[in-house]
């Protein structure tokens, strides 16, 4: 096996694929990266058996030759060393050569590395996603879906199903929902040209990695789902993740649908106010701040920390309707929700001090951030 490749596309591919490779794995060969060299291009594969990523570097793209002098073959190279070596090579061209005893030679300029490779036939077969039921989503939109929900997944293994994002397609609407049971984030988008209906739970970790490697310049992501795998595919990239088993708890009926107090505010101003109040609320784990709204429309956010001091600030709001209110919540959750909402103007709907409240962009029902308040005794 032998080929000569441009260093930049190789680095880009290696970086994507390496995201799936873990130094700690039950199957030793998975600490390696697999290279499959064919006349039409080179495919890199990495996997930790939960996530598998394949990146394809075409021999020629847009009239530019990226891979040449190709002799077909496959090899597995230790990912850690391969990644670092390629990153530090001196020249733009890299020559990779594998002999019959699986010795890998990497040459660039005057630098020569000799590495021991592993037999590619020992690399586990990745599950084939055999389905015609796929649909297509705009890449930028998908990244938004992920970013606006994934931060709310649970990091505790006590309820494993909550460590994932629930992805649901019904009536041509794709919905992502995540909750750690203290806050909930949800976003939906319309999807055309499909009759698919499904519900699955994708690990939050997979979604985070997918978000990192999806390139905004790609137009669309093709998504296919089987019983226990989900595959995201762009032109040169396949991202395969295992699904979480188990039933995701029903959350829709836990979201209050009436409201007693509604506050309209500028997102940026509110973020800054909550951030300031949280400065003096850090001693407790959740950095609890208090929001008080009286009947005259005066709203104040305050933070208090035993032995340190207290802060209070009147909130500049665009409007307030309904009853007076006195509610405490985690400023950390509030800030994450406000930052994820991605809208200039928001409205917050409260139904009482002990009930979850909902933040949405003004005039947009597709995004929902819910926060469960803190009870002060």
């Amino acid at each position, binding site marked *: 096996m032998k080929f000569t490749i441009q260093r930049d596309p190789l680095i880009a591919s290696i970086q994507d694929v390496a995201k799936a490779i873990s130094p700690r794995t039950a199957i030793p060969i998975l600490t390696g990266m697999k290279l499959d060299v064919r006349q039409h291009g080179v495919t890199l594969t990495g996997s930790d058996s939960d996530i598998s990523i394949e990146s394809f570097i075409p021999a020629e793209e847009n009239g530019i030759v990226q891979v040449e002098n190709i002799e077909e073959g496959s090899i597995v190279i230790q990912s850690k060393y391969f990644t670092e070596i390629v990153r530090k090579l001196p020249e733009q061209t890299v020559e990779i050569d594998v002999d019959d005893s699986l010795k890998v030679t990497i040459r660039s300029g005057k630098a020569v590395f000799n590495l021991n490779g592993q037999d590619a036939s020992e690399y586990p077969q990745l599950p084939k996603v055999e389905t015609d039921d796929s649909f297509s989503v705009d890449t930028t939109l998908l990244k938004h879906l992920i970013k606006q929900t994934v931060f709310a997944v649970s990091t505790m293994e006590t309820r494993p199903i909550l460590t994932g994002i629930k992805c649901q397609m019904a009536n041509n609407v794709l919905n992502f929902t995540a*909750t750690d*049971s*203290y*806050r*909930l984030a949800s976003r939906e988008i319309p999807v055309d040209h499909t009759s698919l209906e499904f519900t699955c739970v994708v690990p939050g970790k997979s979604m985070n990695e997918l978000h990192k490697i999806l390139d905004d310049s790609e137009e669309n992501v093709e998504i296919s789902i089987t019983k226990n795998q989900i595959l995201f595919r762009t032109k040169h990239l396949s991202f395969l993740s295992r699904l979480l088993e188990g039933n995701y*708890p029903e*959350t829709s009926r*836990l979201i209050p649908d009436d409201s007693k107090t509604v506050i309209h505010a500028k997102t940026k101003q509110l973020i800054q106010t909550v951030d300031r109040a949280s400065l003096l609320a850090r001693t*407790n*784990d*959740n950095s*609890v701040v208090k929001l008080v709204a009286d009947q005259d429309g005066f709203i104040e956010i305050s933070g208090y920390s*035993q032995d340190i001091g207290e802060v209070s600030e009147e909130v500049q709001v665009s409007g307030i309707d309904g009853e007076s209110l006195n509610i*405490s919540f*985690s400023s950390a959750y509030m800030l994450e929700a406000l930052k994820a909402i991605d809208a200039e103007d928001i409205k917050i709907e409260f139904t*009482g*001090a*002990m*009930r*979850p409240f909902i933040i949405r962009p003004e005039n947009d029902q597709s995004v929902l951030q*819910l926060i*469960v*308040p*803190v*009870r*002060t*005794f």
Partner: protein
Amino acid sequence: MTKHTTHKARVIFHIDMNCFYASVEVAHNEALKGRALAIAGNPEERKGIIVTSSYEARAKGVKTTMPLWEARKLCPELIVLRPNFDRYRQASKQLFKLLTNVTPLVEPVSIDEGYLDVTDVTADPVALAEALQKKVLHTLNLPCSIGIGPNKFLAKMASDMKKPLGITILRKRDLPVTLWPQPVNIMYGVGDKTAEKLQSIGVTTIGELAKADVYALKQVLGINGERLKNRANGIDSRMVDPDAVHDFKSIGSSQTLSHDTTDEKEIIALMTQLSENVSRRLKRKQAAGRTVQVMIRYSDRQTVTRSRKLQAYIESPNDIKHIACDLFFQHWNSEPVRLIGITMQDVSEKTAIAYQLDLFTYKKEEQKAKLQSVVTDLSKKFGPDTFKQVKESNQDNDIRTSFQKDFLDDFKHE
């Protein structure tokens, strides 16, 4: 001498009741006066150990923590009573009430001792102490010793010097004669372990501690080394804090088993009981805790403590037991166990705790809160006595030899 310091020299009393439990029993039953008397836990079991005894019994060699059978051998005429905590509590409350008549600056330390800052009381300290001692003896029928010093440490050391019914003054200038020749382990704050460590750097008397090198002390005892050296030199800046009794960071309960055991059922039964004790005391203080610590003492006296910090505050016996058992079985080496202790650490009053509600259970919590707000509203309307917190019965059905000072929380309000 620095007599002209900016702050006035303080006058601190340490009042220490003499053989408190035994004295209270005598006060209740004149017939016991002058007899060898001991208070002990359950006499049928091994934990039937002497909790305290009268001076008459002590004269015969009876000592605290001695097993009953041994005490009886030394003193066959010994009268043994089970502890009657209600009685002691009552007496203690009366005592502290009496003390607050002298000055509001009273800091209860335990059921039978406390500090008074009498700096601002315009009376000769010795005459004041004598009057106080007489008053306690006549109104409560209880003997006490009083130590007088310029700070807590010296007052405490002084009250220990003459018992019963002693009044002792300990000044800084007395130290070289009174305290310094004494072994370091009689010092308040120096236990067996600390004494051992001090010995390792050649410190055996209080005088040696007073002159010891701070660096060497810090090496073996950390910051506490410097503190102890200061004490040995008669320096102690702690104020008498009437609210100190409200400050609590941990609440625990421990018990010796009637026999060393490896029986898991027995262990779990004891853990259940201990968890209930801890939970009961948390409830009494309206508090909850976030770290559970378990202590295991093996039959060879080897003691291990292990703790776990939780995400949320807990207070119910079940929650405490659950974590404690988990910890216990994770760290137990299957050797016979003599004593188990459970302690809640990171304890805060509920008013200072924020409880993160859960999306899946908030409706249940809401019900609870509704009830609470009704109670609050009605209390506002009809006064604070509309509702009474149902307290656990005050009867001590199970004989416990340890004593909690929780009840001191509210001696002032009664």
